[in-house]
C-alpha cells in the first residue's frame, strides 16, 4: 500500500494501531470462513471511535482504496475477507455500552461481543433475546451487518428485528444515526421508524457494503425466569412442521424450537450426547426440541401444557427428554460451537430460510447433493420468528485434503442453486447467491442502484453483497 496512506493512517490512529507487517497481514487474510481462499490486504488499521473511522474512510476514498470492515472475524460466508492490497478496518476497540433502562434499549459500539453485553445486561436483569451461536466471539454490530438468528429467534425473530437504530459511517465519511436518535435531542433509541423511510433496514444484512456500522441500538427485554424444556416426536415431516406452525399460531413462547431428523440427531448425539448429558434414545423420524421461556410462571406452565396437547393433536408423542433443549438453551453460548468443531472436519454452511412447512424440502435437497458428491454432512434447523425456518446445512471436508475441499466448494455452489428453486431465501446476499438466483433482475437492479448511490466509488466491501 502507498506509503503516504500508511503515514496518514498513523496520523489518525497513532503508529501503534496501523500495521503492514507481513505476519499481521496474513492473519487478516482469513476469517472463520472455511473452504475459502485467503486474500492478503495491504494494511490493517484499528480505530478507537467513530470519528477515526470517518477519517479513515475519507482517506480511503481519497486514494480509492477498498475498505473491508471487520470485527469478530467469525463470519462464515467470506464477508470479511479483504481485497488484495486493500484496507481492513478492525473495529474491536469500539467497546462503549450505554443502557437506556426506561427506553428498554441499549447502544453498543461495534466491538462489543454478545458475551460481553450479556454479562453487562444480566446485572440489570435484562437481555438481548436473540443469540447467534457465535456469541462468544461475534459482535452485535457484525451480526447486524450480516443479519443472523439463533436461540431466541423462535420467539423474537432475527437479529434485524431487534434493531432500533444504527450509527453508520457512510462511504464518504459522513456519520449518520438512524432511528429516533436521528433527532439529536432524543433521549436515546426508542423507535426505529422515525423520519420517514426506514434507513436502518438498509444496513441490516448489508455486509459492510454501504458503510461501516460503528454503533447499534437494540431492544432489551426483562430476562425470562421460567422455562420448560421438552422434546416432541413425530412420524412424518408434515406432522412436525404443522406442529411448529401451530406453536406460533397459539402464541406459545418457544424461544428456541429446533427440528431434527432422526439420523441427524443420532449423529449429533454420537458426537456430543454424552458430553451434554443427553440420555440415549431411539429417536423418532422427526424430533422437535423446544425451550419455552417466560417472565411469569403461570404463562410458562400454560404454554407447556398446550404444547403437549398440540403435539398429540398433530399425531406426535411427547418424548420427555429435556436435556437436549436445556443444553441448547442454557448452553447457547457454547453448544453449537462445540458441536460444530468436535468432529474434526471443516465445513461449508449454507444458511437459508424455508417456510416451516417446507423444511423437509431443504433436507431432501441437501441429502441429494450429499449423495451426488459423496460427502458427509448434516442439516438441522430452527424456527426463526413469525413464519420462517432457518436451516443450516454443514457440508464436511478434510481440511488437509484439497480434493475433498474442492468437492465441497462445488457441492455448495450447486446447493445454493437448487435450494433457491425450492423457494428458500437467505438472510444476506452473500456473493455465491448471485450465481444461484434467477428471475430477480429488477430486485438486483434496485439493490445495485442503491449500492451505487451510497458507494459511488465502490470502495466498501467490494463484491460481498451479491457480487456488487
Amino acid at each position, binding site marked *: 500500500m502507498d506509503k503516504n496512506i500508511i503515514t496518514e493512517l498513523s496520523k489518525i490512529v497513532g503508529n501503534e494501531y496501523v500495521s503492514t507487517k507481513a*505476519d499481521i497481514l496474513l492473519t487478516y487474510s482469513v476469517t472463520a*470462513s472455511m473452504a475459502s481462499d485467503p486474500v492478503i490486504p495491504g494494511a490493517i488499521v484499528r480505530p478507537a471511535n467513530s470519528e477515526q473511522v470517518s477519517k479513515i474512510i475519507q482517506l480511503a476514498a481519497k486514494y480509492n482504496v477498498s475498505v473491508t470492515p471487520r470485527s469478530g472475524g467469525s463470519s462464515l460466508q467470506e464477508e470479511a475477507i479483504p481485497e488484495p492490497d486493500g484496507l481492513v478496518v478492525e473495529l474491536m476497540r469500539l467497546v462503549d455500552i450505554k443502557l437506556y433502562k426506561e427506553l428498554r434499549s441499549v447502544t453498543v459500539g461495534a466491538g462489543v461481543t454478545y*458475551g460481553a453485553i450479556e454479562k453487562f445486561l444480566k446485572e440489570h436483569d435484562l437481555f438481548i433475546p436473540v443469540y447467534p451461536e*457465535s456469541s462468544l*466471539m461475534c459482535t452485535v454490530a457484525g451480526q447486524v451487518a450480516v443479519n443472523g438468528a439463533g436461540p431466541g429467534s423462535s420467539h423474537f425473530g432475527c437479529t434485524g428485528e431487534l434493531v432500533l437504530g444504527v450509527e453508520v459511517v457512510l462511504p464518504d465519511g459522513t456519520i449518520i444515526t438512524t432511528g429516533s436518535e436521528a433527532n439529536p435531542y432524543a433521549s436515546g433509541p426508542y423507535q426505529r421508524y422515525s423520519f420517514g423511510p426506514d434507513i436502518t433496514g438498509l444496513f441490516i444484512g448489508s455486509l459492510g457494503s454501504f458503510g461501516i456500522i460503528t454503533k447499534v441500538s437494540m431492544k432489551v427485554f426483562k430476562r425470562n425466569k421460567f422455562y420448560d424444556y421438552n422434546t416432541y416426536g413425530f412420524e412424518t415431516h408434515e406432522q412436525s412442521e404443522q406442529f411448529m406452525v401451530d406453536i406460533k399460531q397459539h402464541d406459545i413462547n418457544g424461544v428456541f424450537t429446533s427440528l431434527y431428523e432422526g439420523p441427524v440427531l443420532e449423529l449429533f448425539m454420537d458426537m456430543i450426547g454424552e458430553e451434554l448429558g443427553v440420555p440415549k434414545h431411539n429417536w423418532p423420524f422427526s424430533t422437535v426440541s423446544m425451550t419455552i421461556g417466560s417472565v411469569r410462571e403461570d404463562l410458562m406452565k400454560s404454554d407447556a401444557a398446550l404444547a403437549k396437547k398440540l403435539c398429540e393433536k398433530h399425531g406426535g408423542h411427547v418424548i420427555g427428554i429435556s436435556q437436549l433443549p436445556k443444553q441448547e438453551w442454557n448452553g447457547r453460548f457454547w453448544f453449537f*460451537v462445540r458441536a460444530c*468443531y468436535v468432529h474434526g472436519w471443516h465445513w461449508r454452511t449454507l444458511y437459508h430460510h424455508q417456510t416451516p412447512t417446507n423444511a423437509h424440502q431443504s433436507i431432501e435437497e441437501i441429502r441429494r447433493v450429499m449423495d451426488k458428491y459423496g460427502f458427509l454432512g448434516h442439516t438441522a434447523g430452527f424456527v426463526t420468528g413469525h413464519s420462517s425456518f432457518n436451516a443450516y446445512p454443514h457440508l464436511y471436508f478434510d*481440511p488437509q485434503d484439497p480434493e475433498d475441499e474442492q468437492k465441497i466448494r462445488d457441492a455448495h455452489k450447486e446447493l445454493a442453486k437448487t435450494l433457491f428453486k425450492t423457494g428458500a431465501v437467505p438472510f444476506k446476499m452473500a456473493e455465491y447467491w448471485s450465481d444461484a438466483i434467477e428471475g430477480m433482475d429488477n430486485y438486483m437492479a434496485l439493490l445495485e442502484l442503491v449500492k451505487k448511490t451510497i458507494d459511488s466509488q465502490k470502495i466498501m466491501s467490494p463484491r460481498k453483497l451479491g457480487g456488487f
Partner: protein
Amino acid sequence: MEELMENLAQCRRCGICRDAVYEDKGFDGICPVWKNTAGFETSFMRGRIQIAIALIEGRLEKTEENAESLFSCTLCGNCTSICAAEFDPAQCLESVRHVLKEIPNEVRDTIAKKILENNNPYVEENKTRRDWVKEVGFDIPCTGEVLYFTGCTAGFKLPETVIATAKVLKAAGVDFAVLEDEPCCGSVMLRTGMVEEAKKNAENALEMIATSSAKTIVVTCAGCLKTLREDYIERFGFDLPEVLHVVEFLKPLIDSGKLKLKKSDEIKKITWHDPCHLGRALGVYEEPRDVLKAIPGVELVEMETNREAAMCCGSGGGLRSYDGDLAKKIAADRMQDAEEIGVDILATACPFCEHNLKDGASSMGSTIRVVDILDFLADSLE
C-alpha cells in the same frame, strides 16, 4: 509433524480465543496479550496458529520478525480452556516453537546457553543460590528423603520465600534436604522450543537430583512442578521420585494439625491467583485455597476470573524475557483484577507469577501485597 499439522488444522478460526465473556463458565476475556497490546490478530491464538501454519508451509518467510507472534505468548492455556475444537492450541504452539527452532531468536538462545553452562538463567556462579541457607537459622543437609527443590527464580530472586518455606517445613516437623548444587529444571527451554537442549539439561539435572537420594521432591515453583511432573516423567519418560508442590505436601500436615498456626484477631482479605502451571496445567485448584482458608484470620475472596478461567500473570512461556514490558503490563492488568475486589493480599504459588505481579503492582501504584502462599504461611506460624 504430521500430527501437529493435523492438530493445527482443527482450528476453524472462529475467534473464541480472543476476548470471550462467558459468564456462566467464569470466562471474562481470554487472551491477556491481545488485551494488553495494540490487539492485532497476531496477538492472540487464532492469528498465531495461522502464522504457524504459514511458516511451516513456507507461505511466510521464516524471519525473526515474522515469527514474533509465536513468542509473544505466555502459553497460559486459557485459549485451550475455551476452545471448542478437539485440540490443545497452547500445547500446539509450544510444539510449533520446537519445530521452527531454526528461526533466529536471540533471547531464547541466550537463556538456553546460560542454563546449559551455569545451571540457571541468571548468574554465572550457580552455588550462590544456596546462600539463603545461612539466614534460615538451622542446618540443612544435602541429602535426605524429602528434597526441597527451590528452583532458580525463587533461589535467586525471591530468597525470602525460600526461607519462609524452609521455616514452615521445619515447623511441620519435616526433615528435608536442599541440593548443594541445584540444577535448573529447564522449563523455559521447553516452553521456547529448545527441546533437545532441555533434554540434555534434564539428564544432567536428574543426575544432580539423584545425589540427594530423595524419595519425594517438593517444589516452590509451579513451573518446576509442571516440568518435573509432566515433562520429565510423562513426556521424556524419565524416572523421578514423586514431585509435589509444597502446598500439596503441606496440606495433610495442616489438616492433621501437625503444622500449628497462630490465632489471629485481624481479618485479612486475601485472593488466590491460580498460576497457569499449577491450575490449568495440572488441575490443582482447591488445595491452595483449602490451605489459605485453614489459616486463622483469612477471608478468601475470588477475583472475577479464577481456576480454569483465571487470567495469566504474563510472565510464562518465556514472555518475561522476550518482552518484559508486555509481561509487566499484563501483570498490572491482573493486579487490577485484585484491586477490583478490594483485597489486602494476593497470594500465589509461583515465583514467576510473584516476581512479575510485584512489578505489575508497583507500575500501577497498587498497595496490594503480593506474596507466595508460603510467605503467608510462615507469617502465620505459631
